[in-house]
């Protein structure tokens, strides 16, 4: 059992490491593998200052951020899918991401008016906290609407997501209207997603939140398995379902909120990664959660590498890339479900 469990995880870990190495080397300023080894202290060959700056100050935080956000979105997707007992639940589709984005954008545009009353040390936290709050509200609203007595109404679920996405789009539209030019650039970047503005200072608070919210899903893996039986049945086998639900909604909101605070809204990672891992390793969450996180992280690191190289020296918003892959994938999933069970 442990052998069959550990080997696929090791493969996923290997793929994640490979994607990170690739992400560090690829870009407008290519870094050789030998330089990377020296930078890590694994080779005696000296590296020049430019390479060092590119690696440490620019690429390392960016790759790390992409990996962590991808992992967070994938693990959140898996948790949401367990909660809703539905493989179509994704932080982006359900409006969790856009709820977080609206809150984040509000801080960008209107935050200056309140910034002076926030102590300087806490200012970097304002954005992740707001994003978390926005994510929490939207997740709760969708859950209240779509889940009744343990049964998730798929139609309602997706419609609730559409409604929240429309509402947040209206809110963001309003903020676009009042924003100045500088804010407008930041704002558009936020709604399309990207890792272009990432620096160590800007990502540390959100990374701390992710480091707490994502790994702590693992201890409830077996409870997430039990949710597949149905909420009532999960209660019968010993799960305190109400408590678990509150915990999941909070953790997903934290993880997605922190992700949005780093990179804006990046769609479909939470849909694709858990689905592919389930196909390969089965639905048990003890393997699904870490494997999906590794897969989601690797996926975003590669997507980011692609986003900053194909139109170099310009950059594609990463949300556009993931939507290009994720949109058709979602349609394919939907078509399969529709033909199988009439949705």
């Amino acid at each position, binding site marked *: 059992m442990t052998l069959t469990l550990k080997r696929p995880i090791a493969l996923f870990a290997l793929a994640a490491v490979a994607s990170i190495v690739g992400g560090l080397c690829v870009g407008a300023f290519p870094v050789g593998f030998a330089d990377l080894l020296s930078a890590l202290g694994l080779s005696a060959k000296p590296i020049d200052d430019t390479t060092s700056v590119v690696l440490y100050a620019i690429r390392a935080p960016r790759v790390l951020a992409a990996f962590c956000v991808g992992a967070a979105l994938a693990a959140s997707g898996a948790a949401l899918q367990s909660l809703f007992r539905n493989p179509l639940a994704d932080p982006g589709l359900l409006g969790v991401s856009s709820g977080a984005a609206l809150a984040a954008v509000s801080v960008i545009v209107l935050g200056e008016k309140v910034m002076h009353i926030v102590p300087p040390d806490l200012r970097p936290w304002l954005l992740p906290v707001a994003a978390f709050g926005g994510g929490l509200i939207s997740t709760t609203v969708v859950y209240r609407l779509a889940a009744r007595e343990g049964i998730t109404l798929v139609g309602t679920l997706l419609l609730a997501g559409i409604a929240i996405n429309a509402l947040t789009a209206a809110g963001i539209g309003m903020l676009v209207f009042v924003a100045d030019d500088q804010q407008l650039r930041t704002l558009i970047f936020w709604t399309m997603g990207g890792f272009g503005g990432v620096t160590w200072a800007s990502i540390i608070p959100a990374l701390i939140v992710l480091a707490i919210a994502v790994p702590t899903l693992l201890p409830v893996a077996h409870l997430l398995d*039990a*949710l597949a*039986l149905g909420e009532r049945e999960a*209660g019968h*086998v010993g799960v305190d379902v109400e408590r678990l639900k509150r915990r999941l909604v909070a953790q997903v909101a934290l993880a997605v909120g922190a992700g949005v605070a780093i990179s804006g809204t990046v769609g479909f990672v939470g849909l694709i990664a858990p689905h592919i891992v389930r196909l390969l390793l089965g639905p048990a969450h003890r393997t699904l959660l870490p494997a999906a996180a590794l897969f989601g992280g690797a996926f975003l690191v590669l997507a980011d590498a692609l986003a900053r190289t194909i139109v170099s020296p310009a950059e594609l918003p990463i949300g556009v890339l993931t939507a290009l892959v994720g949109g058709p994938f979602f349609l394919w999933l939907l078509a399969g479900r529709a033909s199988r069970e009439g949705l």
Partner: protein
Amino acid sequence: MSTLQAQAIEVRVGAKPLIADVSLTVEPGEFLAVIGPNGAGKSTLLGALAGDRHLAKGHVLLDGKRLPRWNKRELAKRRAVLPQHSNVAFDFTGLQVAMLGLLAHRDRLSEPQMRGLAEKALNETEALAFADRPYTVLSGGERQRVQLARVLVQCDADTSGTPFLLLDEPIAGLDLSHQHAALASARRRADRGLGVLAVLHDLNMAARYADRVAIMEQGRVTALGNTDTVLEPARLSTVFATPIVRVEADGASAFLSLGR
């Protein structure tokens, strides 16, 4: 003494009572069958005894302690519930579903121990062949047997107190041979000291396996007692609004309904 006891309970949906003034005790070592027409409140009673239903009046007590005060995990060690219909989301295998019955026992059992117990239960319900197959591809009867195994393994794993087994129409959808096998499994648990309550529609199955029978009509228990005294053709004919006779053949007796 360990009992599962409903004390004058009432369950409502809106203002309408689904069951009212129901008092009933499941004793360890007995098999209690609940019968009655559709919509009489049998499943509601079972749900109330399982702790799923909010009670407008009365209490359900396990070992003298009200159900809402029980810790979910401790409760799961003391009673198992087989629902009427069960869908499982995602492609969990039969074995994985059966092993979920051991969730409350994870701290005490190793992975191989849990696997062994689940396989034993699947073997008992003749569902071991589905151990590695996704639950979602199984037929209705096959799913029912996997779910039964999940419930059996849950109450078998406990060694500390008397567990109770609540079965909501456990044989619906099963072929005759598996109907007998399922109820014989429940009967064996009762003989071992567990308290079993099963909602049944088949009078002959109730007569064959139960020690006591409760009849429910319009949300109330209208008869409760030993199987032989309660299952009486004249009473059954009134309850089910259809003529029912008892026929004797080869030293055995069976109820026969003659159509309306």
